[in-house]
């Protein structure tokens, strides 16, 4: 037990672990992450690809190769933090709280990161004007307006989604413009402006005169084939004909032309905003940890200055 304690309180162990984590992380940045095993077989030689997959380098920051040194470092840091506090109390040495704050901050940081890993929830959804979206905890969000602003040279200036929020039928927020870098706070959720999209719709009439809508990305079956609606381009509906796994035809169709047994009646598009709702129980601990680390760094610096070491 004593030997184990001595092993974990060693600064040499800390330096070694820091360098090991640094070196492995460095290697991981040269290997594309989160791909299928086949991707690596295609890209690298077979033995190297097998090694990457076996070691977990293809999802490095979730692999044991990364997590085991991190856990060792966490224990190392914890033992060092306790040892510093106890040792000082025994020796009645002059207090040096800076490094203690940094070490405790880092322990809280790791705890916060683990909370994020296990407790984080997120969902991306696309809304057009007037569309509602149900979120957890009884919140319902409705898009009132969506605006895409550009600079005169065409580069994006801003995406603004104005939303209304209700909770159990009562209005919580009557109007809030969500922008990039300006999320909506619905404790404990936050809603971010994440992306944008367009939804194309074709209204089709069947032989009986009934109307039906089809959106881009949807398809229907017709005579052993699949007719896939790819979207609207230059005012024309683009349909693809698929038989088995091969595309056998592409049709550019205007209103009142036929597709399958239907007649296209109307084409329309609307802009969609992509919003992302996030709930992250780890963020507050992480911010608290960062404040502790920053305070510890500042204190260490001031104390070293006081000692004339800097």
């Amino acid at each position, binding site marked *: 037990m004593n030997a184990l304690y001595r092993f974990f309180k060693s600064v040499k162990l800390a330096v070694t672990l820091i360098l090991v984590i640094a070196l492995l992380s460095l290697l991981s940045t040269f290997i594309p992450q989160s791909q299928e095993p086949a991707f690596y077989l295609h890209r690298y030689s077979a033995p190297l690809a097998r090694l990457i997959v076996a070691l977990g380098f293809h999802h490095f920051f979730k692999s044991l190769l990364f997590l085991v040194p991190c856990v060792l470092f966490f224990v190392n840091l914890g033992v060092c933090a306790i040892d510093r506090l106890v040792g000082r109390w025994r020796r009645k040495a002059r207090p040096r709280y800076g490094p203690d704050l940094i070490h405790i901050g880092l322990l809280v940081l790791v705890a916060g990161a683990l909370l994020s890993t296990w407790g984080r929830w997120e969902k991306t959804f696309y809304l057009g004007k007037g569309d509602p979206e149900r979120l957890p905890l009884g919140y319902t969000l409705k898009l009132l307006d969506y605006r895409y602003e550009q600079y005169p040279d065409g580069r994006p*200036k801003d995406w603004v989604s104005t939303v209304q929020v209700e909770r159990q039928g009562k209005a919580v927020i009557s109007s809030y413009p969500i922008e990039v870098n300006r999320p909506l706070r619905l404790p404990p959720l936050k809603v971010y402006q994440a992306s944008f999209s367009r939804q194309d719709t074709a209204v089709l009439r069947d032989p009986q005169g009934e109307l039906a809508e089809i959106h881009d990305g949807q398809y229907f079956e017709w005579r052993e084939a699949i007719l896939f609606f790819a979207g609207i381009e230059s005012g024309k509906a683009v349909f693809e004909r698929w038989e088995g796994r091969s595309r056998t035809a592409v049709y550019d169709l205007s209103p009142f032309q036929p597709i399958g047994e239907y007649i296209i009646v109307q084409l329309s598009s609307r802009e969609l905003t992509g919003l992302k709702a996030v709930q992250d129980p780890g963020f507050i601990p992480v911010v608290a940890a960062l404040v502790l680390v920053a305070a510890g760094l500042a204190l260490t610096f001031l104390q070293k200055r006081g000692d004339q070491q800097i």
Partner: protein
Amino acid sequence: MMPHTLSQVLSAAAFLLLLASGAVQAAFLLRRERRLDPFSHYLLAAAAALLLAITVERSIRIRFAAVTNTFESLVFFAGVTALVLFLYRIIAGRRLLPFVIFGGTVISLALLAIASSPIAPKEVLPPIPALQSYWLVLHVTLSFIGESFFIVGFVSALMYLGSREAEKKERLDRLTYTSIGIGYPVFTAGALIFGAIWAQNAWGNYWSWDPKETWALITWLVYTAFLHARLVRRLRGRVSAILAIAGFAFTVFTFFGVNYLLSGLHSYG
């Protein structure tokens, strides 16, 4: 598109001032008695003033802090480096070894040379939505301020490895330690803390293991190892100096290498 002649005139003038300062320093370094020249640091201060004037002028025009593309980042970085060298010279005075300032001046010139090269477009453009955040401004400016102290640590560590006199080695070792001692907390605040808060605010994710983030973390770990290596007597001196040099090499790769060799979120600088 707004014209950018003023930026180019000012950066060319700053380049000449840095070059003149470096030439004066080199002339004094080549003389037999190693002493600091009396005025080259005022040339550094003038160059810093011109470079920071570029940042101010562009900021007023885009109505946002002008640190949002590679050119602006490099101009700011070179300016802060020149300013830090000037302050070192004023505060440490004659105790400072002339070669440290000279090495720093050469690096500042190199940064400015890259800024004026075609890889850094000079157009004055307001930032895209993801960059419109004051957390980003704190993130970028503090990272560079911390990194300019790492430049001083790098040059003195290099000199440490190259020098033989015990007294000189001790002064260089101390300078490496103190400059990184100042740069480290500033870099931590800028690169890691404000970077994480900005990412959370922009994307709802304070850390996403994007290559630039990973490399910034690795750089931070190397400097952390440097500071801890000093607690172990055996690791002082040579090993410390090598870690300080490695730390700077990682800083440079994080800034340039990641953008050109790896892909990720930080494609703008």
